[in-house]
């Protein structure tokens, strides 16, 4: 009964938050008729504000939709397909399916997603198969060569992840908060593994992460942002495993489809000395989004 009520509440949240989304539109901006034809294929218009769409994908009525997001950079590709109900990328509930290809290996993710203004929640399993990195022998601390040795079988993992993102307008920018918990499975008893999503060496199963950041907004519609974030990670089963990372993140929305994104977060405190591999170092990259209209 309780789980049913929770499901109904989750589905209702995106619909209840319509007013909040409308209120977030730029002051004084007049929109053309929002009764644009809803189609499946991309339109040729790709301005920041699509005149037919009024305000990106976020203004038109809630509906069932298909959306894709492709992140790519040097050298990774992360295509994602989303199937949901609501307003794409703004307030919706549905399912995400991800593939991941990067120089260190291949992976895939699928899970449930709820996104409403100021909140983004996802939960699901992620599988990753590294090309070379193997499971690790248990030890107190690791250096880079420990990570770059073939000791055992490739370190395949199936990680159950849940992640909650919150963001609030505050002064000239936005306050960002993130909390995540990962439950790593598939690792042989007594061995550790390098978790490729969080970039940390884990004594399975649990690893936690929290992020606090503040980004300054700029641009004619405050569509760009840049600012520092701090990550704190902990692996409960590893002694003295607290890891602290710090660095800037960048987001520039060039159109409703194309964004420039970057993060340059390096490890400041860690029991391990594994270099930039241990940071959240997605350098300059692109995000391309599309959704059925």
């Amino acid at each position: 009964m309780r789980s049913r009520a929770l499901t109904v509440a989750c589905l209702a949240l995106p619909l209840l938050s319509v007013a909040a989304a409308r209120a977030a539109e730029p002051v004084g901006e007049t929109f053309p008729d929002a009764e644009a034809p809803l189609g499946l294929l991309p339109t040729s218009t790709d301005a920041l504000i699509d005149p037919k769409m009024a305000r990106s994908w976020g203004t038109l009525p809630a509906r069932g939709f298909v959306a894709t997001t492709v992140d790519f950079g040097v050298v990774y590709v992360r295509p994602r397909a989303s199937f949901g109900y609501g307003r794409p990328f703004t307030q919706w509930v549905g399912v995400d399916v991800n593939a991941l290809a990067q120089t260190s290996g291949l992976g895939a993710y699928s899970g449930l997603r709820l996104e409403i203004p100021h909140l983004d929640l996802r939960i699901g399993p992620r599988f990753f198969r590294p090309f070379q990195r193997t499971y690790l022998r248990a030890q107190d601390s690791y250096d880079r060569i420990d990570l770059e040795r073939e000791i055992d079988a490739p370190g395949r993992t199936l990680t159950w992840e849940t992640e909650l993102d919150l963001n609030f307008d505050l002064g000239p920018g936005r306050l960002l908060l993130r909390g995540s918990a990962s439950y790593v499975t598939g690792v042989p008893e007594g061995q550790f593994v390098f978790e490729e999503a969080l970039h940390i060496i884990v004594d399975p199963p649990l690893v936690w992460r929290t992020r606090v950041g503040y980004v300054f907004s700029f641009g004619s519609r405050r569509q760009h942002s840049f600012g520092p974030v701090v990550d704190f990670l902990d692996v409960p089963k590893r002694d003295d495993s607290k890891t602290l990372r710090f660095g800037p993140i960048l987001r520039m929305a060039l159109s409703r489809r194309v964004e420039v994104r970057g993060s340059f977060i390096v490890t400041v405190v860690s029991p391990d000395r594994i270099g930039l591999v241990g940071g959240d170092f997605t350098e300059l990259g692109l995000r391309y989004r599309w959704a059925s209209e």
Partner: protein
Amino acid sequence: MGLSAVLSLHLGPSWARALASRSFAAALGLVSALVTAPASALEPPVADAPPRKQPRLVNAIPLFSTDAPPPLIWKWPTFGTADYAITIAGAAITFTSSIVRPRASHSLGGPIGIDADVRRALRADRLSVRYDFRDASDVGLSLALSWPFVTDALTTAWWYRGSREAAQEMALIDLEALAITGALQGATNVLVSRERPFGQGCGEGELPENATDCTGSFHYRSFFSGHSAFSFTGAALICVHHLENELIGGPWDALSCAGGYAVAATTASFRVVADVHYASDVLLGAAVGTLVGYSVPLLHYRKLGGASRGRPSDSAGNSLQLRLIPSPNGVGLLGIF
């Protein structure tokens, strides 16, 4: 029309051997041959083209000027079918060569020329420090590759100068140049199969025998340096796009160009400090990268390969003209100086 020269290049199984033994000379010919095809006759002259849609109003960057800059107008022919074919072929060769293991027999091994002296002078003493430099070179490569797309094409040409078309064309030219660099570097890598400098130390001292550096195909991919080739291609692309389009104006364009080369040079030298390349690997990489990084965009901007269509002041008499022509053994390159 003064001096004419014809460089023939066999296409087929023999091209790979040519790359291995005379890689640089063959690379020059291949690059020119590949990029000349679209330049020769596929695009209609700009003068005959229908008038282009004017770009939208632009954004000002207070750092450079409080006034919005003039909209950027793409005056040159657009990316053609042959360009797409070259880019896809280059990307396919790059991808394939990253998977295929280098040949079992090695055409080149150990230091040559100044390699040993440079290695002695620059190589970091400790393995952990060498890994740090390797990571830093990855950051440099990433910046050098991302910058022409993300900063120059998308942010500057599109957002700052208001021309989505210019951004798209610049990004496609960048892709084509990088695909050609990747194809040349990847094919040479696999065919030459040179052992990396650290290779002789596998199983001794700090580097255990089971290190992935020693067990995988990475071990024999020393010649020539991909980091160096790609970084210098990126730097050359930054220079050409900035100087041809005057993207941000004044000294800033020249500074962007200099910055690109600073990043490329640092990236390349870090590969020697990290002991993953000899000096000869990074020098050849820099030469190939610079050559491809300049020749591809300049062919599109009609500084090479024929009369400028976008700028009437550039006459055919002042430019190097390159033509792809059929020959009995394959494809030939005609250069008119």
